[in-house]
């Protein structure tokens, strides 16, 4: 008998269909990955297994834990089961812990809810569990608060809470999506180890197919609330049946061919740039301290070149990007575009700014919802002395939209009428409209589903051909940087530790940090099934 057996599960919330006829099993000690793009119903499947569905949810079908049908249990019985028989780990470690309670109290709480034991005993067991997930005593005392820990350490606390009572089933919903690659590798290793040691069933929900391929015994692919394909990892990877599965894997390892660089004159020159941030005063009247976020960074970007910038969170990527855009002053060094300084005195140089545009990560937050697309994408016009008007303006708008694969009719629509991928196209149109010399892509494809990401990467390659783009592509995603750039910079703790031709750096990294980074990044195996 399976540990968890979901049979013909159909779920609707306020008569809106979410899941349709979902069936699968998880055995004890088995690691099963559920994957799919956003809106596929992965997370709702997990919540249905916990019976923690939002208000207004209606289900049919059965959720069997052993021979218990959870859909027939009362709320009190479910509470006794959650945390005890099934543990759950969530995506966002920064917010998954209560900020006003100590980590010891939070781990001990799981034990105290389900077992009649003393507080002291529960704390002792909490300490043992924290040690087990890699937060040994006394280095990580129980009295720590969540804000005193890093993201990876917080995720370990969440895992400790979930496994404190050695549940039969552990559900992990995108447990590493918010973490850096090196931390991700450690957390995944920990989850696999715990599952194997305790003979736990592990339901792993993730959109990252490379992660799936590396750790799962079995894979379930979902799309629009339905299971389209499931099977043992080895078999599924080499013999995919469903076109959607094939498309998904193909899109994940999507590669583009960039046109060769034509010109070689320098466009952006960054010399010995340093950027300091003030830190709080150490004493009441003492001088505030300072933290060097960007330290002595120098590089050059030639016209027509596609440069990548990789590094983990907090390494100074975003600070450097803001400094390049003239949004922040720098303490030392110089940044010039076409030989002109980005900063004149303490103010950004507008004459230079009109040669530079940026595309941000979040396709939802980077647009004003009250403006039409025509107004959104013409915003950079304020940088021009004589912006086009009338018919000429209309023509520029049309050209920009067509260039990114939209139609001129889209100009009159509002932003909520577009999907995430279309919004990112509009963001690119906004950057293109004044024909800048340089575009900065700040994690521009990180929030997109793999199939959409593949389309945007194709679009960029196409624009390199038609518009002779030069760009700086900032990302934590190594596989994307590898295909979309000619040269790459690796940043760590505010410094560039390695730079070189992208392919050289990836195949033969020199700096130990680059090696760690590349080793930690999960890679999709060579796939025969993914052909489309």
């Amino acid at each position, binding site marked *: 008998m399976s540990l968890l057996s979901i049979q013909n599960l159909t779920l609707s919330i306020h008569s809106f269909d979410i899941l349709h006829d979902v069936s699968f099993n998880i055995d004890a000690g088995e690691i099963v990955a559920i994957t799919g793009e956003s809106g596929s119903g992965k997370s709702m499947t997990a919540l249905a297994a916990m019976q*923690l569905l939002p208000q207004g949810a209606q289900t049919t079908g059965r959720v069997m834990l052993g021979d218990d049908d959870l859909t027939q249990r009362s709320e009190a019985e479910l509470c006794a089961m959650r945390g005890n028989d099934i543990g759950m780990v969530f995506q966002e470690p920064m917010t998954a*812990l209560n900020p*006003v309670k100590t980590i010891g109290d939070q781990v001990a709480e799981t034990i105290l*809810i389900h077992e009649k034991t003393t507080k002291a005993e529960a704390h002792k067991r909490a300490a043992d569990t924290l040690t087990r997930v890699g937060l040994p005593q006394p280095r990580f005392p129980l009295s720590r608060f969540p804000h005193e820990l890093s993201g990876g350490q917080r995720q370990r606390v969440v895992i400790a*809470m979930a496994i404190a009572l050695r549940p039969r089933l552990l559900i992990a919903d995108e447990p590493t999506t918010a973490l850096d690659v090196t931390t991700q590798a450690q957390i995944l290793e920990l989850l696999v180890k715990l599952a194997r040691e305790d003979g736990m069933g592990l339901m792993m929900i993730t959109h990252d197919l490379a992660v799936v391929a590396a750790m799962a015994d079995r894979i379930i692919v979902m799309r629009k609330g339905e299971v389209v394909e499931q099977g043992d990892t080895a078999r599924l990877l080499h013999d995919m049946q469903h076109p959607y599965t094939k498309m998904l894997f193909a899109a994940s390892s999507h590669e583009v061919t960039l046109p060769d660089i034509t010109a070689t004159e320098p466009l952006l020159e960054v010399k010995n740039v340093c950027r300091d941030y003030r830190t709080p005063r150490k004493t009441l009247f003492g001088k505030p301290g300072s933290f060097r976020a960007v330290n002595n960074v120098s590089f050059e970007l030639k016209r027509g070149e596609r440069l990548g910038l990789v590094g983990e969170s907090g390494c100074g990527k975003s600070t450097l990007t803001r400094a390049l855009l003239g949004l922040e002053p720098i303490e030392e060094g110089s940044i010039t575009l076409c030989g002109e300084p980005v900063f004149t005195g303490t103010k950004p140089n507008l004459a230079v700014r009109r040669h530079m545009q940026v595309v941000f990560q979040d396709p939802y937050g980077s647009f004003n919802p009250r403006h039409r697309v025509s107004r959104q994408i013409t915003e950079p016009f304020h940088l021009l002395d004589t912006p086009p008007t009338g018919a000429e303006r209309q023509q520029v708008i049309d050209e920009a939209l067509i260039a990114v694969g939209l139609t001129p009719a889209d100009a009159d629509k509002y932003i909520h009428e577009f999907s995430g991928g279309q919004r990112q196209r509009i963001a690119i149109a906004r950057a293109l409209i004044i024909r800048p010399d340089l575009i900065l892509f700040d994690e521009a494809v990180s929030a997109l589903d793999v199939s959409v990401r593949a389309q945007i990467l194709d679009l960029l390659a196409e624009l390199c051909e038609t518009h002779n783009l030069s760009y700086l592509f900032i990302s934590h995603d190594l596989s994307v940087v590898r295909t979309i750039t000619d040269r790459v910079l690796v940043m760590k703790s505010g410094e560039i530790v390695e730079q070189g031709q992208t392919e050289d750096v990836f195949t033969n990294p020199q700096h130990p940090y680059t090696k760690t980074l590349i080793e930690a990044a999960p890679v999709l195996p060579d796939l025969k099934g993914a052909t489309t």
Partner: protein
Amino acid sequence: MIRYTLKRLLSLVISLAVASVVIFTVIEVAPGDPASFMLGLNAQPETLAALRTELGLDASKLERYVTWITGMLSGDFGTSYTYRTPVADMVTQRMWVSVPLAVYALALSTVIAFPAGIYAAARRGRAGDVGVMSATQLGVAIPNFWFAMMLVLLFAIKLRWFSAGGFVGWDKGLFAGLHSLTLPAIALALPQAAILARVMRSALLDVLGEDFMRTARAKGLTARQALWRHGLRNAMIPVLTIIGLQFSFLLAGGIIIEQVFYLPGLGRLIFQSISARDLIVVESVTMLLVFAVIFVNFTVDMAYAAVDPRLRART
């Protein structure tokens, strides 16, 4: 935590110093000479000059500021121009009405608002929530002086449970004192309770949507347990802010209610002193109220730190 406290204390002292200069300057700039006001329009210039010397009005501004501040620090608030009695005595007398009234009203407001807010948040969108929210809407909308008069009509005139006004004094016993403050306290508390309940509800709803509440449920806590153990303390920050503001308001802002119930409180004292150009009283009482407000804010800051460990770590 010690550094946090020291920093708050320092900011308290600086705020008080700045406030004292502002109050002194504003009252100096305000038109109206207390001496000529006291003696009337037909006063002889010599008498006027003599009175000004007696009141200390002919000294330089800096001298008068220093005398005022050092006096206040040693508990000597000067002598009222009109009543010819020490301001300290007058203020003390009034404080024995205003402070208990404010505390009483705030306690009532909190006792009503907390359960109402928590109840509404736990039943979001259901009949209970709609009921509480409608009641608070009404509470915010009704002018408190009108409500005070309705209370008098019902409880004092019709039912005769309370007296219609005045304060019997604490020498008649705690119960008698509280009894005569009950109607004014209710009149003051109800609109405040309505606001506080709404804040409590929305703060709790924000917290209920947080990820850690879902984590708490995944551990096996019931919805109610999760609300009490993880929700409430996180929702306290905005609630404490409002409570602090309300206490400051209740201390001096009860002037209309004091008028309706003939209570000898601080609000009425200020009002009468302004009408009589009794500047030394106005100055001193204003300064005292400013001190009370700043001190309440300091207490609220301390309460924040007690509730939220992240603030303790910050400087």
